[in-house]
């Protein structure tokens, strides 16, 4: 569907937000789902759509965060208010925050991974799930925390919050703060997510990670976005790979191999 760009704003020096009029998607999207956006309508180069987490929703609109990585995101960065973008969605499976197997949600965020967290924050609030947000960045100028709540900051240079990695901050708090039956919900750079799964194993707590990867179709046809399953998951499902686009983008840490 064509979605008019109704607003565009800068979030940090390398992130900006597109607000698109997309009432059908806005009314049905669930926390953690994504949309697939064509960089340029009618063009064949770049050819494929790009996936983006739905950052925030409102009356008839959705927002996505853009970070320029290559040709597709650069094209999208040139979109002007009034332009229409070709969007399909919502796609993927939502965060599994309603499973009842935990009492406290710990949202662990890094980089552009912040895009999938506002919807989870709101879901926790509306479901009366206690939550804490741990947010790491190199320095304070990189935080995009406009929709986040109960945030514990960590910066590499100490410019805001804890000096050091957000993983170390969380490890310290898990030792000293009595979070009741916590579960980690993680979205950020791959090294951070890998470290988060190690941390979760260390404390024997559940952990769900939201992956970002290349995908051609986003709907399970092309089979281009596989992630290897663990031996236990292979035994359970018979599948050597899960698709990030349809099984994910979020997975329990026991399901997949980083």
């Amino acid at each position, binding site marked *: 569907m064509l979605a008019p760009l109704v607003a565009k704003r800068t979030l940090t020096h390398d992130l900006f937000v597109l607000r698109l009029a997309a009432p059908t998607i806005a009314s049905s999207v669930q926390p953690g789902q994504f949309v697939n956006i*064509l960089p340029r309508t009618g063009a*064949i*180069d*770049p*050819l*494929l*759509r790009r996936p983006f987490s739905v950052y925030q929703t409102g009356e008839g609109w959705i927002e996505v965060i853009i970070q320029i990585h290559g040709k*597709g995101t650069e094209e999208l960065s040139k979109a002007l208010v009034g332009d229409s973008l070709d969007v*399909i969605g919502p796609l993927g499976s939502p965060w599994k925050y309603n499973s009842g197997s935990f009492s406290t949600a710990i949202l662990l965020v890094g980089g552009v991974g912040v895009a999938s967290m506002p919807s989870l924050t709101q879901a926790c609030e509306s479901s009366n799930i206690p939550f804490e947000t741990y947010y790491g960045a190199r320095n304070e100028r990189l935080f995009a925390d406009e929709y986040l709540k109960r945030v514990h900051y960590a910066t590499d240079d100490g410019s805001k919050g804890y000096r050091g990695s957000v993983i170390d901050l969380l490890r310290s708090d898990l030792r000293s703060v009595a979070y009741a039956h916590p579960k980690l919900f993680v979205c950020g750079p791959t090294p951070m997510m890998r470290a988060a799964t190690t941390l979760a194993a260390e404390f024997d707590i559940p952990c769900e990670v939201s992956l970002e*990867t*290349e*995908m*051609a*179709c986003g*709907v*399970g*046809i*092309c*089979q*281009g*976005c*596989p*992630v*290897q399953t663990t031996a236990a998951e292979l035994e359970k499902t018979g*599948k*050597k*790979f899960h698709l990030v686009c*349809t099984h994910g983008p979020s997975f329990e840490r026991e399901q997949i191999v980083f």
Partner: protein
Amino acid sequence: MSVNEKSSKSATTVNLGIEIAGVRFANPIFVASGTFGYGSEAARFCDISGIGAIVTKSVSWNPRPGNFPRRIVETPSGMLNSIGLANVGVDAFVTEKLPYLAEFDTKIIANIAASSVGEYCSVLEKIEANATGNLVGYEINVSCPNVKDGGLSFGTNVGMVEEVVRALRPLTKKLLAIKLTPNVTSVAPFAQACEDCGADAISLINTVVGMSVDIRTKRPRLSTVTGGLSGPAIRPIAIAKVYEARKATKLPIIGIGGIATASDAMEFFIVGASAVQIGTMNFVHPDASIRVRDELTQLLTSQGCSSMKDVIGTLEVSGEMRSLGW
């Protein structure tokens, strides 16, 4: 008759129907194997019953998990893939996928991949024994570049293609199409071999072997180093191969390769294809086949054509060349 008169007359009479080996298709726009799954994935976005035929994802005897990531890379106007024939296996195909597809008013062509002649036969026999009403034929994949066993090794050896066709022909009276590779010097001997051994049609092209390198890490971008290039970037290659095959065989040709618009499809028809398959564009627009079908109706109408017969095989290579579209 003026152009306007032609258009107004054709608007109500244009007929997209075609026939291949006795099978009647409502329109000549099919979806290519591996680009439409087993139908269910795209059903939310596409009027499946409006597609001329669905060529299902390659099915092998056993389920295949596919290759390790990274499996896809975008390239200029195209994409490289190394999926590795990930599929559910023939048992799940006949018990789950075919019954689902039987609910739609469209023709189904089952694409078969294998690593031996015996496996091709076993898979076809299994499907044949469980065929649903709208299953009209088979497309035999002798040309996948992304699997170690079988795959391209069949499709680049005329003798092997002959062996496969001869073995399969007695097993079915349904449409038997052979999907050929462009990764040979000349496709003509392969097309001729298919005709000589009893195939009903040929599909071409499959993907073109390609490679992409990350200049920062100096590593190949695909886990298998090379993969299959598809998308609009390969369309001129596909047109040339269809042109070559058209001269070598009388078999119907199903053209494949980078079709994004009705104009693209028309190039294939003019060169001699009876039908075309939409491939990579299904990833961009899951309803790409319906868009192209509708555009084709408009295009035929605007050109004063009333049926596909008016365009198929109408290529003229002699006379004055005109440069258009610059």
